[in-house]
């Protein structure tokens, strides 16, 4: 984070130096920034802008067939208006899937951010010699792709092949079916927490490292304990980072897909529309209905946008402001 102002400074110095050294040809200079920006703009337009526009267009279309719908000319694409949107929202599977990720978010976000904050504070307190190792060990799961992580955990959840169940059974606790209907939400949440804590911890830890040490010194002279320092100095100062990690976690929750999708074939309890994004996948690639898939995608995108920016508004956009 501290490198950003430094780079800006270097750029500022250069742009100040250029007019003195270069020739004063205004017209050519005015176009230069755009030339440098062009590759980024073209890539953004081609791979993000255009697909979004195309998805929005598709969400207003649908396929219409005639009669048996067999053979050539029986199928045509027509305007659908908001029909796809109405069908998406009124789908019997849609609201339960939203409720499910609501419950999932209530588990994942507090536990993951709580653990990340705890680990970051513990590492920052510097009382442990294994700091470097612990930091890497906690961060490492984030480097494991979600699909691989879900497979690993899936194997640990399946009763017959899981060493966890051997241990539980051996200790007389019985063997719960972790993929059964009463446990499945926690089983999926666990994978996300395992994979996400490390990333959030690094963000918070980096913010903690930026706090000047003399504040702690002053606090200690005033007789503050470590817990008081953490609670009254560290946490308020890194609040912007906490807000930022919260927004990222919120977005990740709304878009949860890989974990339940990978666990789905292992269990009876995860339906094809378990989360809203899974419904998009089912509509597009199992039902071959990319039109209603596009409509649901647009709804999810708008909801994500509204929730993230609504939250930022609520906390006063502190996350992305410079700490001063």
């Amino acid at each position: 984070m501290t490198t950003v102002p430094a780079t800006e400074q270097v750029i500022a110095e250069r742009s100040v130096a250029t007019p003195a050294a270069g020739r004063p040809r205004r017209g050519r200079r005015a176009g230069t920034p755009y030339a440098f920006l062009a590759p980024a703009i073209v890539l953004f337009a081609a791979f993000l802008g255009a697909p979004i526009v195309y998805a929005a267009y598709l969400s207003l279309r649908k396929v219409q067939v005639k009669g048996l719908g067999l053979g050539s000319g029986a199928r045509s694409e027509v305007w659908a208006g908001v029909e796809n949107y109405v069908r998406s929202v009124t789908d019997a599977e849609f609201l339960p899937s939203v409720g499910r990720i609501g419950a999932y978010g209530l588990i994942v976000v507090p536990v993951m951010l709580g653990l990340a904050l705890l680990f970051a504070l513990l590492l920052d307190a510097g009382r442990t010699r294994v700091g470097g190792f612990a930091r890497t060990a906690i961060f490492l799961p984030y480097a494991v792709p979600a699909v691989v992580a879900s497979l690993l955990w899936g194997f640990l959840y399946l009763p017959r092949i899981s060493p966890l169940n051997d241990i539980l059974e051996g200790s007389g606790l019985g063997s719960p079916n972790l993929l059964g209907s009463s446990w499945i939400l926690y089983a999926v949440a666990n994978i996300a927490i395992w994979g996400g804590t490390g990333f959030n911890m690094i963000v918070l830890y980096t913010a903690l490292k930026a706090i000047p040490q003399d504040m702690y010194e002053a606090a200690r002279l005033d007789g503050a304990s470590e817990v008081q320092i953490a609670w009254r100095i560290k946490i308020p100062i890194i609040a912007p980072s906490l807000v930022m990690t919260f927004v990222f976690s919120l977005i990740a929750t709304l878009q949860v897909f890989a974990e339940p999708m990978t666990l789905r074939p292992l269990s009876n309890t995860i339906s094809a529309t378990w989360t809203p994004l899974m419904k998009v996948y089912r509509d597009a690639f199992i039902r071959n209905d990319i039109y209603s898939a596009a409509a649901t995608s647009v709804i999810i995108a708008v909801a994500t946008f509204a929730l993230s920016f609504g939250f930022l508004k609520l906390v006063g956009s502190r996350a992305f402001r410079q700490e001063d």
Partner: protein
Amino acid sequence: MKKTLAGVLAASLLLLTAACGGGSDDDSSTEATGPVELSYWTWTPNMDKVVETWNAAHPDIKVTVNKQDGGDPAVTKLLTAIKAGSGAPDIMQAEYQKIPTLVSADALADIKDEAGSLKDKFPEANWTSVTVGSDSVYAVPQDNAPLMFFYRKDVFDKLGLAAPKTWDEYAAAARKVHQADAKQYLGTFSAADAGQFAGLAQQAGASWWSVDGDTWNVNINDAATQKVAGFWGGLVQEGAISNTPQYTPEWNAALNDGSQVGWVSAVWAPGVLEGNAGKTKGKWAAAPLPQWDAATPKTGNWGGSATAVTTQSKHKKQATEFIQWLNTDPAALKLLAGTANVYPAALDSSEALATPPAFFAGQADFYTIAAEAAKQGNPFTYGPNVNVAYSAFNDTFGKAAEAKQSAQFTAALATMQQQTLDDMKNTGFKVAG
């Protein structure tokens, strides 16, 4: 953040690829000079070796195999290419249940004039599948996958059981196996395998879709399917069989360690058992599928595929010539069975199937049982939205199997029927009911 960005990027790339369509597998050569080049999408292992034989004998029609990942991804790719207007192959392997979907997307050419005369060379059930119950012919059957019953002979011998001839005997055997050893089951009800359940409904006399003039009928919730759902739901409810899905590491372990001692499966089962339960080699036996009425034995299919010509092919005649050779010529059938390990659909392929599969080396009559079963297939028509019905099956029967309630099994059929019907009406198909 990285994950979110990656997700957004992946999603937009998916949409973009959907928008841009397929690559350039299309051959743009015209009918002018030189040999005709045909591309062939298939996921059958070793099919390139079978095609080499054709290419050696037919220098004027050169077929190139383009290996696919599997049935579902190949269909998605083909539908995208058809939508884009180019990029489809000349020849396409298509599972029987996918044919109506492909025909409905105008992806398969009608080869009635070129291949209509082959009707008598195939079992009726397979031929119904490639015609979608109409006068047109959209593909030539390649392999047949009649349902059979596979069981651990050592376990049956120990308990004094014989291979069940009827479903009542199967239920009795399942109870006896589970009573003798609480960890053992004669099978599982898998909500993940709609194709298997469709095969069992087919055996009971169901045909989930049918064509009546220019109108579709959907009959998923009929008496025959109700009977099948009630039977399996009852066994799950009383705990005589297990309720976990097939094709999971859990199920593989159960087959391997002797907890699952029976499997209702198709003729291709030996390959799966060999891969998943290698430790049990030599202990299995194959038998005909248990019957509802032993006097009139019937069976259904689970899997199997046909070879079709796509509507983008510029060489329909030559392509049909090739698929006719591939699926009916005795030399080709021998290669299909021996090299590509498929069970040919053609009726006169017995000489290609002399020796039993390696995993069932001790059972000399393996292919005799399979051939008998292949002739007993009930006709079954698949509709243009099998994907919707199968996906509804996964969800509704998943819930029922988890709850272990027989009543939910039969109620699930009503939901399946409703979702399938709604989807067809919504798309504009003319459908009764």
